[in-house]
């Protein structure tokens, strides 16, 4: 009897899981495994050389993944349409976190940005990562309010959505975190486009973005190091000691991997730590050097698989809210992955954003896996 009940409960608990999109789940777990190996490869020899626990990062990364998967699972438990009701609360919490991180005494500054809130036990959270979810949900809620089955969002709806997004985006800009700001902004434009809003909004927003960027650089709103990063992207010799050096090193590290790579844990560039932030922002260089074109190309294909399945989910759902949430999550992941990998490849200027599923970092991992959970939630509910 007891046995039966337990079995029945577990059946109930994982009933959702069996209905997940299998390919999306496969891509996610493959990327998570890949990332776990890379985080270990990026830190093992470095820590061992300093007589520290070589598995320090590995262990914490696995803990992050486990927590993240639990969050993802939790996200799929409740029908996302019910989540709509809680969206204002989620949005409010996101904004509160962003205000907290800017509050003196609460937020801590790392690498010139006030982006972290330190927690006991050596952990810290990055509210901006979780705010991404708040923003996506918030905008989806407003744009889908008329439930697109009947009519597209009006100008008023778009304006309201932009206002709702503006508050957290401004707070993120204040940290400052230009990379996240740009990625979220671009994702919002994509969401507005898919919402069916008037085309003039898309064109207008792109023009505003271009003008805004120009004015920001001219007026000195963008800080000096950001301009330098941009310059060194255009001309790697402009700032050879700092960002130019890092970008050059990143390219050399990836290029030297060749077709088959140097072998895991065997990358001389990685082990020599010629590239900074190898377990987070520049983790793709580890893949490039140690697994070569075969390994890092495979990673790109896994991302491609992930996006393909996610788009299928977005297409199949008849619910505009669900579709917008999916498109928001896809745009966020894709743009962030493109910025992160593109920076290492020399396609994009330097900004510090993590690579979804791969980079070390708790908040980013939690947010990414919640995003995965949202995709599965929409999938499960649209069958």
């Amino acid at each position, binding site marked *: 009897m007891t046995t039966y009940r337990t079995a029945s409960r577990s059946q109930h608990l994982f009933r959702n899981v069996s209905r997940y999109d299998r390919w999306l789940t496969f891509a996610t777990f493959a990327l998570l495994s890949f990332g776990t190996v890379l985080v270990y490869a990026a830190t093992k020899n470095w820590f061992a050389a300093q007589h520290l626990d070589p598995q320090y990062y590995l262990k914490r990364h696995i803990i992050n993944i486990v927590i993240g998967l639990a969050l993802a699972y939790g996200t799929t438990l409740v029908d996302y349409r019910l989540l709509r009701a809680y969206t204002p609360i989620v949005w409010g919490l996101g904004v509160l976190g962003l205000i907290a991180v800017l509050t003196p005494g609460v937020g801590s500054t790392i690498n010139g940005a006030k982006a972290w809130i330190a927690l006991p036990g050596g952990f810290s959270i990055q509210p901006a990562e979780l705010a991404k979810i708040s923003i996506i949900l918030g905008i989806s809620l407003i744009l889908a309010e008329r439930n697109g089955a009947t009519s597209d969002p009006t100008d008023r709806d778009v304006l309201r959505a932009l206002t709702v997004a503006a508050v957290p985006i401004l707070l993120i800009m204040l940290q400052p975190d230009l990379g996240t700001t740009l990625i979220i902004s671009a994702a919002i434009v*994509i969401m507005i486009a898919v919402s069916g809003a008037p085309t003039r909004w898309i064109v207008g927003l792109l023009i505003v973005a271009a003008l805004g960027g120009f004015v920001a650089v001219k007026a000195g709103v963008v800080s000096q190091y950001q301009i330098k990063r941009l310059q060194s992207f255009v001309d790697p010799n402009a700032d050879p000691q700092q960002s130019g050096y890092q970008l050059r090193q990143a390219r050399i590290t990836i*290029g*030297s991997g060749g077709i088959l790579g140097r072998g895991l844990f065997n990358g*001389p560039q990685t082990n020599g730590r010629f590239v900074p932030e190898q377990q987070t922002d520049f983790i793709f260089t580890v893949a490039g050097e140690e697994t070569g074109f075969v390994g890092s190309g495979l990673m790109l294909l896994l991302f*491609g698989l992930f996006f393909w399945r996610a788009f299928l989910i977005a297409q199949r759902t008849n619910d505009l809210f669900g579709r917008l949430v999916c498109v928001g999550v896809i745009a966020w992941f*894709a743009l962030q992955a493109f910025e992160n990998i593109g920076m290492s*490849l020399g396609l994009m200027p330097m900004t510090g954003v993590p690579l979804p599923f791969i980079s070390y970092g708790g908040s980013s991992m939690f947010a990414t896996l919640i995003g995965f959970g949202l995709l599965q939630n929409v999938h499960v509910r649209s069958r």
Partner: protein
Amino acid sequence: MSQRSRLNLIVVQILILSLVLAMLGRLFYLQVSAGLKYQNAALSIQSRDIVTPAIRGAIVDDTGLPMAMDRPGMVITVDRSVFGKMPNKGQAVLERVAKLLGIGYSDLYTRTRLCGEIAFAKRVGCWNGTLYQPIPVTKEATEVQALKILENPDLYPGINATPVPIRSYPTLAGENAAHVLGYVGSVTAADLTNSTKQYYLNETVGKTGLEAQYDQFLQGTPGIKTVIVDRTENITRTATTTAPVTGNNVVTNINAKLQAATEQALTSAVSSARAQGNRADSGAAIVMDVHTGRILAMASYPTYDPNIWQKGLTTAQAQALFSEADGVPALSRATDGTYAPASAFKALSVVAASHAGYDLNANYNCPYSITFGNQKFHNDDTKVSGSMSLQRAIAVSCDTIWYQIGYDQWVKDGGLRPKSNPKDYFFKSAALFGVGQPTGIDLPSEASGRLPDRTWKLGYYKANKNFYCNYASRAKPADLTPFLISIAKEDCTDGYIVRAGDAINFAIGQGDVLMTPLQMIDVYAAVANGGILFKPEVARAIVKPDGTVIKEIQPQENGLIPASSSALNFLHGALRAVATTGTAAGVFGNYPIQVSGKTGTGQVQGRNANGTAKDPTSWFASYAPSNKPEFAVVMMVSQGGYGASTSAVGVKEIYNALFGVTGNTVDPTKAIFPKGSPPTTLPRIDLRNPAVKTP
């Protein structure tokens, strides 16, 4: 949902697909297309070559005695990249090092600065390398000093002590031989770019002398340890290691004891010339094996200690090496000094005269003076006059006979209106004796002297025509005398013509003709050996450290002197007469070894820096034993006075050592070469236990 929403979703899909494809394409370019380029770039970032200099080969004398060899030293280096992070840029550490090494702080400070970092005037001793390599501040640290540094890294951060080989010139037989051996120094930018051999930055290379000439053999191959470093330059692992290969040894023809004796003889000749009231600013002495052209000893005065280069040259020392006031000790007079050969040239004049048809066994008139045009030429070395045999004329060094012969030949060749095809017996013979041509000795630097024939005269005229034709405006006011102005006028119109005075002077080795002491000894060795002009050789063989002979240098002929056997016979008799009854009879008259030779007393135009007239160049060119010549010996003392009183006396001292002569007795056991001639076999070399022999 609207059509627009669906359409836009597809657009976004395509957009994101293209982002993934862009990344894949770029990844393909970086890793597959340009992979090799980046692999090389990565290697140059990660790997560092640590160069362990090879032990440089030794230069040994004909008995195997090392004259130049590496000895162990201890180098102290300062790594300034460590200093950057310390208070006051590491001043306290540097002060501690200065105290430990007993060097002045300001001196040490200069040695650790890049040359660009300090004012130009204070640059002497500055560091020529980069900030990223450890800067050597001394190679002569003691073991105690090195241990103090190594055991207290907290007191001496960035300071290191490593054993290095130091080039040393041990003077085991009392020889100096600085000009023959040369010296070594750090590679320069020119060496690094301008060489077929690949040098590393901290290698030493030969700069002059044998060290430079045979550098490729002496060098050895440095050991290279390639290490992989991380971004903070910490070594993470060693990639490859090759052990250094010791350089090969150069066996020379020099005999260190003879070299020491030659140097001593030259020095005492200079001293005695000075005692006689001559300036005697410099000199050279050479001993050659007449059968092979091998150089057995070669000295130049003044000289310097070749070890100073390794100890770290002070400004004063560096300046002194090249200062006129100190006689430019760096210049090797034997090979690079050119002088009027004066009467020592008469050996060549005899051959020229025989070609011109003069009977070498006839009598000639030797008046005290002789006048051509309005110019009077007189004897210099001798007061003897009257009719005499040509042999006697050579012995007593009569000049007027040669003036007449030179003048007559000049007239026959057309005089001031030269024939289109003049005979030029004197110029052409001299050319075949090697005058005006480098001998090709195996040393990196050698002067060619000057053969003032018609071609040279024309070239000189072209180069100076402008000056003579504008003499009034270009000459110094002091030189504007009526006499000089008239000469300038002549030189302006037909300065290319060989004049009577030129021909007359040339016949006795005066005027514009210049020879190096090396050319002179080559000529006398050729007379002694029956006519073969050898390419002089200092080195004998290149031998591996294990004794294997890599290369043996065989005697090489430059040609034959243009002397018939009768001319040679005449010369043998005449040159012997010089020593028995002629100008050198006072020195060699009762000498137990039969010496043949010729004195020379060269008049020198121009004045010394203090305004005094220049004293004559003293020459003695010779060979011995007269009946069976083995050695040629030449000494030249610039401003040394008479050939007989200065150089002949010096040469006798060299023969004393060569043959083991004391007073009037010969002790063959004391001779440098007890068998009578230089060794024919290569010596054994034992650098660990060089037989230390005192001269």
